């Protein structure tokens, strides 16, 4: 087991990407020292800027003084380094590729949609982003059947990489569903994922990690002001999703 001082996590309580890393550390029963960035990231700590000079973003795991950045890369690092503890990624090469594919898909679609829903004004403006989230849920409902093979989690009997990759967003999903009165994870359309979500948040490695919805709601109001003030960014969110098909075609050609 790692010495607490050997493992540092630079993070923020509200970040779902940081939540991923915390859950992974819990799966491996690892102690770590938590370094909390301030609420507005203003200023960013010297530790963060030194540990992640390329992006200056959380999470960063620092293990034996060496930093590892990007949440999914950190989760894989944790799995490979503490390899005798319960596995996070599947053992089979194909199942691993499938898990990584879906995790990357979630990263492309989910948080940017949630962020846009909070930022834009009006139900009509929010509609396309809700539709993206609903499409993700539909695909993941299907993926769950294939990955879980009848077991309770994407990872099978135990929570794994894809459970962590998606489950980290459940707190923020609550915020979106409650504040904008539109359910994304519904029994009729995604019965497996609804049950999976209940099991996930109750899992010992997850309990207490996902922030309380009320606390996130309060933060979301402050973030809304900040994101709306930087309103130029909204155009990028729009073009990213409305122009997605076109962007895909050009990527394919090139």
């Amino acid at each position, binding site marked *: 087991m790692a010495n607490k001082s050997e493992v540092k996590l630079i993070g923020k309580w509200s970040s779902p990407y940081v939540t991923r890393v915390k859950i992974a550390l819990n799966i491996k029963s690892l102690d770590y020292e938590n370094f909390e960035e301030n609420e507005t990231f203003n200023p960013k700590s010297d530790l963060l800027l030194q540990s992640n000079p390329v992006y200056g973003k959380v999470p960063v795991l620092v*293990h034996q003084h060496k930093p590892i950045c990007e949440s999914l890369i*950190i989760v*894989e690092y944790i799995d490979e380094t503490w390899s005798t503890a319960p596995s996070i990624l599947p053992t089979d*090469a194909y199942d691993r*590729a499938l898990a990584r594919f879906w995790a990357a898909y979630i990263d492309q679609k989910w948080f940017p949609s949630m962020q846009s829903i909070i930022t834009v004004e009006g139900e009509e403006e929010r509609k396309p982003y809700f539709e993206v989230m609903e499409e993700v849920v539909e695909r993941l409902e299907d993926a769950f059947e294939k990955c879980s093979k009848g077991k309770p989690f994407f990872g099978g009997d135990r929570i794994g990489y894809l459970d962590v990759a998606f489950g980290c967003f459940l707190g923020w999903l609550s915020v979106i569903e409650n504040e904008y009165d539109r359910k994304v994870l519904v029994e009729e359309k995604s019965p497996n994922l609804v049950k999976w979500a209940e099991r996930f948040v109750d899992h010992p490695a997850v309990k207490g990690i996902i922030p309380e919805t009320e606390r996130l709601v309060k933060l979301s109001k402050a973030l809304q002001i900040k994101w709306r003030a930087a309103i130029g960014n909204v155009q990028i969110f729009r073009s990213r999703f409305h122009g997605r098909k076109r962007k895909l075609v050009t990527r*394919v050609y090139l």
Partner: protein
Amino acid sequence: MENNNVVLLDFWPSSYGMRVKIALQEKRVSYDCRQEDFQSKSSLLLEMNPVYEMIPVLVHNGKPICESLNIVEYIDEAWNHKPSLLPSDPYNRSQAKFWGDYIDKHIYNIGKKVWTGKGKEQEEGKKKFIECLKTLEGELGEKPYYGGDDFGYVDVALIPFTSWFYTYETYGKLSIEEECPKLVAWAKRCMEKESVAKSLPHPHKIYGFAMQYKQTHGLV
């Protein structure tokens, strides 16, 4: 691994497709390469990649793997004989994946502004593009390859984009060799490898494709 049926769905100018070809060549895996026509996507592509309908897709014994770096990692694991593409040490692996991800986040999108953009958009794109290349050149340092002494994952991730350098330079009116001489030297070193030389089209062919693309899409 016995009884392999390996199909690659590809489009020849795609840097992402080239990555997979290099990885398969490195591992000396025989495969059937099928070119896609995006005016009419094959039913195989639509079946194997319903989420994105994009190439490259590796179909191994009937099962699809999508997203180029995901495929490269899969190839490294499924054919785990030498040469290894990813390092064995977890920290070095994490660094290789970090830089693979950096290349994915920056090079294609910013490069596109260089060869299709105009005016201010192009100028800003050029500036950012050179910054990214310099960052990558810095990461290479004095090593012969990103993988150290051996060609590896990050080399595979980046080298295909060098077939597009002539196109970026011509449309962007810039010289990548002047800005990033070490990177260009690294590219020449990589091109000496058979797996790379066989997988990358000639830069002039890419330029020809780019010219045609711009005409078709009204970007001239």
